[in-house]
């Protein structure tokens, strides 16, 4: 029988089609190793990412969210990433205020030539998530209630 393996965080990454997705591609083609914890979703632009996406990911039980786009000034659509920056900034700060651990909402600028940086970012974010443990934000029972729920069956 298979041994119960060590817990691995699940990370969802929203990568912009023009820079970060190509950056991730480059990381692959140049044989850079990065944690397989990330599930990548291609978006047309980091400006496409709504705060709702992040909330929905956390609600579905993902342990962290990474939003990645072109460096400021290099957006394919000129201003998409500037708008994303404002939105992500208030979302992250506000979620921290409500009580989401800051490690769970991450953002980065990765250009199409930065395969190495992409691998580092994913490794770093995964390390951070391992440090804080599984996402129990939206689960019915958390730690102290866990025992009670088990007793109920």
């Amino acid at each position: 029988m298979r041994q119960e393996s060590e817990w691995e965080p699940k990370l969802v990454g929203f990568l912009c089609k023009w820079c970060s997705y190509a950056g991730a591609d480059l990381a692959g083609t140049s044989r850079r190793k990065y944690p397989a914890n990330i599930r990548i979703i291609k978006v047309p632009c980091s400006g496409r990412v709504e705060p709702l996406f992040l909330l929905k990911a956390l609600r579905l039980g993902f342990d962290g969210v990474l939003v990645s786009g072109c460096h400021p000034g290099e957006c394919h659509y000129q201003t998409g990433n500037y708008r994303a920056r404002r939105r992500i900034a208030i979302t992250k700060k506000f979620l921290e205020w409500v009580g989401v651990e800051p490690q769970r909402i991450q953002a980065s600028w990765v250009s199409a030539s930065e395969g190495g940086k992409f691998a580092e970012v994913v490794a770093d974010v995964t390390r951070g998530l391992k440090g804080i443990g599984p996402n129990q934000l939206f689960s019915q029972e958390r730690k102290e209630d866990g025992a009670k729920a088990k007793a109920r069956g």
Partner: protein
Amino acid sequence: MEQKLKQEAKSLLEQGKVDWIIGFEPGSLKFTTTPLITKDKNDADRLVINPFIVNNLANFLTEVKGRVGIVAKGCDSRSIVSLIQDNKVVRENVVILGVPCPGIIDLGKVERLVGKDRDELDDIIREGDKVIIKVNGEKKEFPATEALFDNCLACEFPTPQEYDILLGEPKPGALNLAQSRGNIEKLEGLTPEQRWDFWKKELSRCIRCYACRNVCPACFCQRCFVEETEPQWALPVPRWQDNLIFQIVRNIHVAGRCTDCGECERVCPVNIPLRSLTREMYDIVDELFHFKAGMDKDALPLMTHYEQEEAEEFFR
């Protein structure tokens, strides 16, 4: 002030400068007011201005057609300006009757102060920084800071930012910022996990009546994300997880429009301290982007413009 309002409202309607007047009239219960929306110049005599004009009337602006004369306190005027910024309202179609607001009296606080129901009170009078409550022929004096709404205590701009007719003398701002942030500071002392549990507990009371959304002048989406079914962002049932998502995303959506008018918290039937969320968002927007909602009708809305250098600390 009230006399001047009645005259101005009457003459605006008579001269045909506006089609509608939106203001306050006495409510059916003691110490309450209710919104008055009228086309009839004779109704102008029913208009009142007193320390109980609590509603943010900007909410009705998008619902009436034609030119409108509207009574606006400091915070309401900012909501109107915010709507103008978002092209929901045309400036030329609005005549703003500005009321320099000394702060609105919170009847709940008054009841707790004197330990009596509002029906048993004879009178509540605001005098300078005191509130005088008459009960059973007795006069009780309290500092105004104990009887006003929390958001009024932190009011920076009691005088309307944008007006056509100002009905009184301009007033200075901020009575007591610290007191109004009491609950927020208490929460700041907690760990993220404790804060999350706090909101989980508070929002598990939410019955999803959407009063907070419907009363909010900044919440003007034709279709709210909670009612979307494809994809379904949040279930329409009052479960705490979905309640929390609703409130968090609502606050993110109104960032840069919310003027901390406190209406959401006031109308909440289960007394969820929503202002601790809205005020925090208000402060975040101010801290990160030096943006205060509804200050300048020619400014761009917060989320539609950007600076070259800002908020880089959130990105790797």
